[in-house]
């Protein structure tokens, strides 16, 4: 009676080697494809201070969205004439907020998040306050900086 044991073992070994070879080559094709799909890290704009426009252009009880680095920020002139600036990115789901001159609050139209003029959450679902910036009025120019 012929002994098939060594043949079968050799076949298993060849199958395992072939399987491992195919698996490894598949992974070696997959890896660069997956890495290609992930966008490269781009250094964020290092803006720590930007000009938010002319002071005379913004009346009390109004606001303006301006660009702070790569993100929007909001400059608010309160009804009393004070200057405030915050990140305009809602802490809930990333929408851009606006100023409501009726309620004197910063409001996000997407999910009705509401912030007071210190950036604190006073209504709706946002979990955190808005990041606050420092405002300097230099002559007629409004300069906003990270605190």
């Amino acid at each position, binding site marked *: 009676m012929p002994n098939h044991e060594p043949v079968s073992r050799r076949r298993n070994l060849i199958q395992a080697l072939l399987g491992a070879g195919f698996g490894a080559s598949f992974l070696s094709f997959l890896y660069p494809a997956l890495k290609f*799909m*992930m*966008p490269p890290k*781009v250094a*964020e704009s290092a803006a720590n201070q930007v000009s938010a426009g002319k002071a005379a252009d913004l009346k009390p009880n109004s606001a303006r*969205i*301006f*660009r702070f680095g*790569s*993100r*929007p920020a*909001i400059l608010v002139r309160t009804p009393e004439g004070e200057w405030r600036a915050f990140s*305009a990115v809602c802490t*809930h*789901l*990333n*929408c*851009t*907020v*606006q100023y409501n001159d009726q309620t004197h609050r910063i409001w*996000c*139209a*997407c*999910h*009705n998040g509401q912030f007071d003029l210190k950036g604190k*959450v006073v209504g*709706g*679902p*946002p*979990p955190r306050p808005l990041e606050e910036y420092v405002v300097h009025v230099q002559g007629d120019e409004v300069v906003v900086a990270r605190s």
Partner: protein
Amino acid sequence: MLRRALNWLADRAGVDSIRSFLAHKTVPIHSATIWYYFGGITLFLFVIQVLTGMLLLLYYRPTPNEAFETVQFIITRVQFGWLVRSVHSWSGNLMVLSAMIHMFSVFFLRSYRQPRELIWLSGMVLLFLTLMFGFSGYLLPWNTLAFFATKVGTDMAGLVPVAGSFLRRFLRGGDEVTGATLTRFFGFHVAVLPGLTTLLLLFHLALVQKWGMSSRQRSGEPVSTMPFFPNFVLRELIAWYGALGVLGTLAALFPWELGTKADPFASAPAGIRPEWYFLAVFYTLKLIPSKVLFMDGEVVGIVVFGLAAAGWMLIPFWDRQPEEAEQHRLLTGVGAFVIAYLVVFSVLGYWR
């Protein structure tokens, strides 16, 4: 000569075997047979999407400086451009509706039960891909609504535990929604999703062919049937014709609006809301408070939605009864609750 050529073609293409297959294929008849047509209607609308999408590709350019302008050009200058774009948008929406009706009909007819578990699972993934078609296509005109919908949607993906930040960067092509996101979504919409959908659709249809349509009869009971060809096929064609009528009417009478061009440095406008099929989720997220116990409210929302979707997808494994005719009162109640939730919250999301 022509007859000989046709005979040769029929012989080489194996037309006889197709004829014999069609002659033997039957479809069960019962009081709920009408719901069978929605699977076919969804397929029909997918084909319309592919055809109109190809036409739009002749003019559309996926860059932030050109996307809005090229869509504007299509609907104002290209002959019948408004109609092609409107048909594309409306058929996308009707496809989501038809796929949802198809899913709920399979659910309430209990057609997901063994041995059709994989048909249900592949159908659920197809529905997910359909929603992704809607989500990715929505950004392509680069208008204000689309821009903020994408910001919110990709930020929600970022809340998924563990893989969130990877997913958000992967979807956006960076940290923010920019031109890189537009290019990426365009690639998903016209290449990745159609490829995946076509493959999965073939798998889904092959399984429907293998296991047949469910008959709702107890095993051993006689099943009334009709021939697939021509009886069922002709009925399905009438259903497609009806769907085409609805689509044409909607596209012609209510052309899809373009809105205003996206400005990444402008506030989200008042009254902003997503497409109707995301309204229920949108309104729920509005209602969840900022903190639930020790977790951020939106994270709780995403986790609960994810678990609910997973539970729904695994229904064939909760309900192990082999007989389609047997009711499962709890699951029927769950289905009715899900429909009531989707309808009520969508209406509230639209009006409030």
